[in-house]
């Protein structure tokens, strides 16, 4: 991974969020407060703008700037959670290029940031239910010697599987938790946007 790839990834996330904005908001209407699509769109659009004239020295600088922008524009829980994750991933990639193992370690730092802030665990019906399996799949590929493209495809597939698995869960964190058992039967919006983030990385690499 290099700085150009990191920037293209963020642009691809922004495009994906733009395309799925209404879907994310619709999922959030069912069990939350109907703002997830709008908020993510505002944040990633701002991140693309912030990166436009930015000339980073390291992969991490791109992602730290993305995270900082998300924190200052998204609001809600998603702002600190996604912003903190991107900052953590960025801080772990303090080099002009990064190999698959470095990216795996950085993604792990991102998950740790989300868990520390959100205090959620797998099974709570949150973005972690997409992120944790994606990281596991990525790490397995990296350990098996796969290249970055193959590892990210595996991660994106696992994230989407994790996202779908949130439907039967009862929420234990976030606004959906207020619904109690009525949160069952709805796919989690945060897990859905997390799957978009991983798919965007896989597609960015696939297009190279």
């Amino acid at each position, binding site marked *: 991974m290099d700085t150009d790839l990191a920037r293209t990834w963020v642009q691809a996330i922004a495009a994906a969020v733009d395309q799925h904005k209404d879907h994310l*908001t619709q999922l959030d*209407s*069912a*069990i*939350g*407060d*109907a*703002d997830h699509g*709008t*908020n993510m769109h*505002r944040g990633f659009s701002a991140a693309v703008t912030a990166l436009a004239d930015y000339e980073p020295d390291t992969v991490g600088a791109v992602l730290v700037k993305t995270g900082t922008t998300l*924190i*200052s*524009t*998204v*609001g*809600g*829980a*998603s*702002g*600190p*959670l996604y912003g903190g994750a991107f900052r953590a991933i960025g801080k772990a990639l303090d080099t002009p290029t990064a190999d698959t193992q470095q990216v795996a370690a950085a993604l792990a730092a991102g998950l740790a940031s989300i868990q520390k*802030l*959100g205090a959620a665990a797998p099974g709570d019906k949150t973005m972690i239910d997409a992120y944790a399996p994606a990281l596991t799949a990525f790490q397995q590929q990296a350990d098996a010697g796969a290249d970055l493209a193959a590892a990210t495809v595996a991660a994106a597939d696992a994230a989407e599987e994790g996202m779908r698995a949130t439907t039967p869960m*009862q929420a*234990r*964190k*976030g*606004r*959906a*938790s*207020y*619904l*109690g058992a*009525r949160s069952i039967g709805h796919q989690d919006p945060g897990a859905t946007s997390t799957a978009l983030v991983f798919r965007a990385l896989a597609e960015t690499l696939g297009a190279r």
Partner: protein
Amino acid sequence: MKKFVNAPEAVLAEALSGIAAAHPELKVDAENKVISRTAGTKPGKVTLVSGGGSGHEPLHGGFVGPGMLDAACPGEVFTSPVPGQMLAAAQAVDGGAGVLFIVKNYTGDVLNFQMAAELATEEGITVETVLVDDDVAVQDSTWTAGRRGTGATVFVEKIAGALAEQGADLAAVAEMAKRVNAASRSFAVALTACTTPAAGKPGFDLPEDEMEVGVGIHGEPGRRREKLRPARDIVATALDAILADQPLTAGDETIVMVNGLGGTPLIELYVVFHEVAAALADKGVVVARSLVGNYVTSLDMAGVSLTVCKADADMLSLWDAPVNTPALRWGI
């Protein structure tokens, strides 16, 4: 969707501009989205900053003024403000005596205010935070993010604000805010869902003869759906939930708020208050002070929330202290 808007994405900025135009005693920082007092802070006074998603007006901007908040930071509709806003608010009002962040207990608000507190501390501002979590419709358990902050926010902001105005230090103001929160319980029922300008349609569908019981203030569905019943029965449900969590005995003094969620006429709120007053009188509980109106709304939701605070003499005296804000004004 039928709303008085020009464009959904412009609602917050235009409403802030309207607040500035309507209330010269309030200063609106359009860039940072901070509402503060035009007159500024008296040196040495502890300052109170609150904030949260928009759509709950008059909360919080309508409570900025002498005797209550020093500043409010409104986020987008139903979206917590961002740390930079809260930091700007703290920097704008801090008079050296410290800042109390009054935070409703929602994951987003808690995380953003937490980050803001860290930033403010780095800037040399002393910050204390009080969480408001009064909604008994949510069980505080491992299955939830904890109780929501709703109606008690008005009580906390009024009473802690009065204490700060009297010159108390930050620790005392924070302690009083926590006492008020601990003494308050709320429960809400909705007859319709609300429509955010961005979503353009109601958050949920509710048949003509049904109600959502145990709703929050963000258009999310409640704990359960029931057939609509007379106001007397609805009040009994709400009051039972509140009293089950905080029992009151004959002679206890209370501050009671019957709050409209945005789409319920005042006459219905008074019908509800009539039932609340009768039910409490039956138990010998004294309604020492009351508030009936739209104070913590949920856009255009038809619904009502009931908040009961078991008040001590200090709280009642601070409640009576002068307040001069767009939404609460007495004793001046």
